[in-house]
């Protein structure tokens, strides 16, 4: 069943269009993350769903009903703001119950719902405090609590973790995932520019760029089969390495130095860029790889090491090697392309059709 459906949604500020016709289908109960770089229109999109921004064009449906012109409070959505937006002069209890009280919900019912939400979020002992007396993480919970008491069908989160420190962010991320399970059936739409949050939380990720949808899919789907260079570079950490190919004879391509690589398959001729994640390359002796480079930096993470290699044509690549390999900086090394390789054409699109072929692509040193 469809929870939220966006059809050709557009948004203009004055004459300037910032969201250019977005189509997204969100199932009921799904956890969807909108992710993209700063200024791509994530917040704008979320605020249009919330009803805080007018929709310039297209249809927004919630549970099958067109709600373009429905008041925010009547859409069955609740929003958690990045800055929490708690009312500073009210206690936690009053903050959470404020909306209900203002709309004439009986006192007993308000109290019941507030204590219910407080229990879910484990903030029962904070109910009498003012927001000023709470830590960032606690404020965040209260803000979520204020959404929960309304029993919304759709939760909207705009970068709810970005004001927290790194450790708390990870902890709260986990809490959110649990919360989604506890509130089974409620749809959650979550905005972030952090692809790790997107990967870890989402049932479905929507990657946005400059007001357009680049790709929609499950986290691993986007990771394994990015539709284009942008998604490939955005999803996954460390970033995917891109190797530009220069046309050679037939299906033999040149890297930017003299090294060559031979590709096979139907669409091989259109290939312009190879994409390899850090764990899809290995290091070798300088003359045994597809090409050679110099180790510039090594980041030791314990279980693995990220080795940054500067190629002979001056590009920096990152290669993941097992922890304890103890690669030395400044040494010459060979780089072997191995494992899964992504192929992109001159426009930056990947080749979804020939994907299976390419995984077996035979890459030889020319």
């Amino acid at each position, binding site marked *: 069943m469809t929870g939220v459906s966006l059809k050709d949604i557009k948004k203009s500020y004055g004459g300037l269009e910032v969201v250019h016709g977005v189509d997204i289908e969100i199932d009921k109960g799904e956890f969807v993350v909108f992710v993209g770089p700063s200024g791509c229109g994530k917040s704008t999109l979320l605020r249009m769903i919330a*009803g805080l921004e007018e929709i310039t064009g297209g249809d927004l449906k919630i549970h099958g009903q067109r709600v373009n012109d429905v008041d925010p409070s009547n859409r069955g959505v609740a929003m958690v703001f990045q800055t929490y937006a708690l009312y500073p002069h009210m206690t936690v209890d009053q903050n959470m119950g404020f909306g209900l009280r203002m709309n004439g919900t009986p006192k007993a019912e308000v109290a019941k719902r507030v204590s219910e939400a407080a229990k879910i979020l484990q903030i029962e002992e904070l109910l009498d405090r003012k927001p000023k007396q709470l830590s960032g993480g606690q404020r965040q919970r209260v803000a979520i609590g204020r959404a929960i008491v309304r029993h919304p069908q759709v939760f909207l989160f705009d970068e709810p973790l970005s004001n927290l420190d790194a450790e708390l962010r990870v902890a709260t991320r986990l809490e959110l995932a649990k919360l989604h399970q506890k509130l089974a059936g409620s749809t959650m739409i979550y905005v972030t520019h952090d692809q790790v949050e997107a990967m870890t939380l989402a049932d479905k990720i929507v990657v946005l760029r400059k007001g357009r949808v680049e790709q929609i899919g499950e986290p691993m789907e986007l990771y394994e089969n990015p539709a284009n260079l942008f998604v490939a570079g955005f999803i996954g950490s460390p970033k995917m390495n891109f190797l530009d190919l220069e046309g050679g004879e037939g299906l033999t391509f040149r890297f930017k130095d003299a090294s060559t690589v031979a590709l096979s398959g139907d669409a091989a001729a259109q290939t312009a860029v190879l994409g390899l994640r850090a764990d899809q390359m290995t290091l070798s002796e300088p003359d045994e790889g597809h090409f050679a480079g110099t180790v510039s930096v090594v980041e030791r993470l314990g279980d693995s090491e990220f080795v940054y290699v500067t190629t002979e044509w001056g590009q920096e690549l990152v290669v993941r090697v097992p922890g304890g390999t103890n690669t030395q900086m400044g040494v010459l090394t060979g780089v072997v392309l191995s494992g899964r390789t992504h192929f992109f054409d001159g426009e930056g699109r990947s080749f979804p059709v020939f994907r299976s072929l390419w995984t077996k692509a035979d890459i030889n040193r020319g």
Partner: protein
Amino acid sequence: MPHDASVSIRPPVLSPRMRRVLISVVLAAVCAVWIYPLLWMVSASLKDNAAIFANEGLIPERPSFENYVRAWKEANIGSYFFNTVFVTVGSVILVTIASSMMGYVLGRRRFVGRGLIFALIAFTIFVPQGYTIIPVFDLLTRMGLGQSLWGVMLATCGGSFVIFVLLFAGYFSQIPNELEEAAKMDGVSFIKTFWFVMLPLARPIVVTVVVMQTLYAWNDFLLPLVVTLANPSIRTLSVGVYAFRGENFIDWGGMTAASTISILPVVILFLFLQRYFIDGLAGAVKG
């Protein structure tokens, strides 16, 4: 400065403690000059008319409350007191509500002509009160309020209304949008959001406005003098005090006693609210 440059440490001319003492003495002297007229007034109110000009210093030799009794009874101060309370309380309520609502809309809503309204409002600050008294009186008369206490009260709302609106507008414009949006998501109406969220947040400004309007309404002289010329029964205290000035003889004792009575309430109010008041002004300035 290079890192190895040596910094010579000069001992201060005065120790910090001496400096504090010196500053306190200077400030106390300034305060004394400042407060002298007030002390003179209180002192005079406790003397009889002959003693006032006998140059006997601020401490009365034979203090008496006779002036107060005379002021209260004969000069009608009792009923003027009521008039003043009516004008003050009424105008404070009206001014606070109206200026906060205007400031809210001007500070937070973008609408066509907003800049123009701001400019016009700001412009009126530069029009001296004296120039507008006659037109205001004329307006009251046309509205049939020229001879009533309600008229005095309404006219008194004018005072610093514009400044209050600007104070509120400045304060409200800094409250983050999300608060309003959160209320909107909760389905809280515009008016309720204003009343239950925004106005409580603006408490420092509310207190400032209440105190300043109270002072203004309580002490205003020129406007009530003109409006009540023809009708002594609706005089306020400040005008009533002026009536001690007879044709040939000024009853200084009665006048100072009446003055002391009239400023007592505002002094008490200030003592109670000064913390909020100063917070509010500081908040409005530092933004």
